[in-house]
């Protein structure tokens, strides 16, 4: 009993504080941001321009395309579902927006809404399949990807479309506004703020987390689970297409395989940010960290002139290593 008071001594209090901090801070988030700092440090050893504001802003701009797409992926992953239709929904967004630009002045004005609208429509169909027909999301979105590809092949005649993107699209993707901050970054900030509001401050967001944890319980508690699932997929489709619109604005035209390099990085970014692939757990700030980390990693590897195969290997090893540190599931026995 003589040792009991020592719990209240100074060293005991420090242990308490460290303990509280450790419980407050999501380890996934800490690791992701730690890795971002590490990547930047390694980069700055290699070249001092790595820490310059221009370079960092440029990286943020590139990251914002992935960021917009990953936002949609995250909402779907939070439900415990997955969206494999990202590649061609991105392409649909870019292609329909550039096609609309070719229709004349009215079309040019409507280019961005048309692109996003097509993505929402495709996402809505997937959502109906998942929510009402109860088909596994992996299957529905895979099929939707094939249908979207087929539609675009018919629409473009099998070639990359000749229409270029509208002025508004180019302004959003390549322009700079206040203090030289790229517009694309501002777009991502806006999308991110909307997503944070939607996920944490609305019934919709609460229901998304609830469904991800246990859909049956959410349904029995009176949540409108099917409408929410359908809406989430429509949102994801719209955000993928918006990513495509921005990409088309960045490259000033759309291309056949423009969405292919975004499916796996989007899922990887969401998961690296600490969102559980089983759904129900994860924060948007984590996804932001994941997106920035993946973009920086790709950038630094190409700056270091690592051959392409090395980039793929490093990329895969980093994802596995980080997840082994903080993304492990529970034991079967628990």
């Amino acid at each position, binding site marked *: 009993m003589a040792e009991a008071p020592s719990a209240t001594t100074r060293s005991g209090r420090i242990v308490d504080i460290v303990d509280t901090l450790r419980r407050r801070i999501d380890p996934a988030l800490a690791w992701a941001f730690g890795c971002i700092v590490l990547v930047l440090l390694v980069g700055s050893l290699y070249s001092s321009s790595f820490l310059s504001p221009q370079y960092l802003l440029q990286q943020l701009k590139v990251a914002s395309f992935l960021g917009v797409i990953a936002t949609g992926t995250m909402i779907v992953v939070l439900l415990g579902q997955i969206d494999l239709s990202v590649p061609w929904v991105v392409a649909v967004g870019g292609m329909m927006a550039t096609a609309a630009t070719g229709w004349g002045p009215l079309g040019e004005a409507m280019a961005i809404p048309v692109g996003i609208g097509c993505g929402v429509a495709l996402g809505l169909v997937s959502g109906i*399949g998942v929510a009402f027909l109860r088909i596994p999301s*992996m299957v529905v979105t895979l*099929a939707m990807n094939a249908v979207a590809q087929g539609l675009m092949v018919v629409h473009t*005649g099998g070639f990359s479309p000749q229409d270029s993107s509208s002025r508004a699209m180019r302004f959003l993707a390549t322009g700079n506004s206040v203090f030289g901050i790229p517009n694309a970054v501002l777009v991502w900030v806006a999308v991110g703020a909307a997503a944070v509001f939607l996920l944490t401050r609305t019934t919709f967001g609460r229901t998304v987390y609830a469904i991800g944890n246990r859909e049956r319980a959410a349904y029995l508690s009176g949540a409108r*689970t099917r409408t929410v699932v359908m809406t989430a997929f429509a949102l994801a489709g719209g955000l993928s297409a918006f990513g495509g619109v921005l990409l088309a604005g960045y490259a000033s035209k759309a291309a056949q395989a423009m969405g292919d390099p975004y499916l*796996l990085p989007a899922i990887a970014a969401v998961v690296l940010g600490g969102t559980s692939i089983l759904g129900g757990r994860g924060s948007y700030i984590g996804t932001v960290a994941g997106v920035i980390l993946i973009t920086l990693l790709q950038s630094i590897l190409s700056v270091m002139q690592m051959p392409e*195969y090395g980039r793929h290997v490093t990329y895969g*090893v980093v994802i*596995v290593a980080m997840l082994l540190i903080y993304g492990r599931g529970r034991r079967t026995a628990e």
Partner: protein
Amino acid sequence: MISDRSFWLREHKATLLAFAAFVVMFTIYAANHPAGLNANVATTAANKGVLLAIVAMAQTLVVLTSGIDLSVGMVMILANCLASSIVVGSPLMTTVGVVGVLLVGAMCGAINGVIVIFGRLQPIVTTIATGAVYYGAALALRPVPGGDVNTSLADALTGHLPGGVPASLALLLAVVAVIWMPFRRSAIGRAAYAVGSSEVAAYMSGVPVRRAKFVAYTLSGLLASMAGLFVTFITYTGEASAANGNTYTLYSIAAVVLGGVSLFGGSGSAIGAIFGALMFRTIGDLLFVFNVEPLWQPLFQGVVLSAAVCLGAVRLLRVRNRLDLYG
């Protein structure tokens, strides 16, 4: 009590349905082919079908344990690139090369298995990441398409047997007999089904959960590398194409679903997946035979695929009460 036969029927309903659908489609295809069903038409169709069938089998083994392997396509590409370098020369060297390719494939599968089992990561994320690593390795082996393969072996396996039967079909039968049948009939195979039905229940019943998963992932890698070997035999070259790898991964999931294997695990068989794969290929060939405008072919294929896959996956018809929907 249900009699043996009706029990057998119920257990194999999905496989039989896939088989029937394939037979109907293939009959329509053969009857309408401009050249009729001669040995060459059959061999070309069989080669394409068998390739996808082997990848679908690889996918099935993992899906049965309620996992998913998004790296099958990349293991196939890695095996293809490796085979284009080492499956050459004298019969002895060729044999060593084939064994080497298969070992590398099994190792890739084993790595997936170890990370999933001991790292306790989700299969979908794990295999996305390891797929990138395997693709990187393939790219290191073959930065540009090229290489060579033992032509006589390749021609023997992709040609047709004396009776006009495609040799690839015999190869597929051999793969089923040597890998799938022993697996299905072994205690480990039954354990894999049990793990797919309910991992917790399997664990509580003393089923060797880890061993079953490990064997399933390893055999999956082995089968994927067989598909890679077969690609090399068909094309005579190695090519590290990420697009091809991803396409085969996605097609393998489609074939598995068409073949009546449940993505939730624990039900279905590799035989069903084989017919799913053959059916998937026949859909594409049917569009060709009926002279669908080339531009419209991807759309038709997409629509037919979604219709078939969605019909196969609709759970609404099997639901007893509303709560069942939210499993």
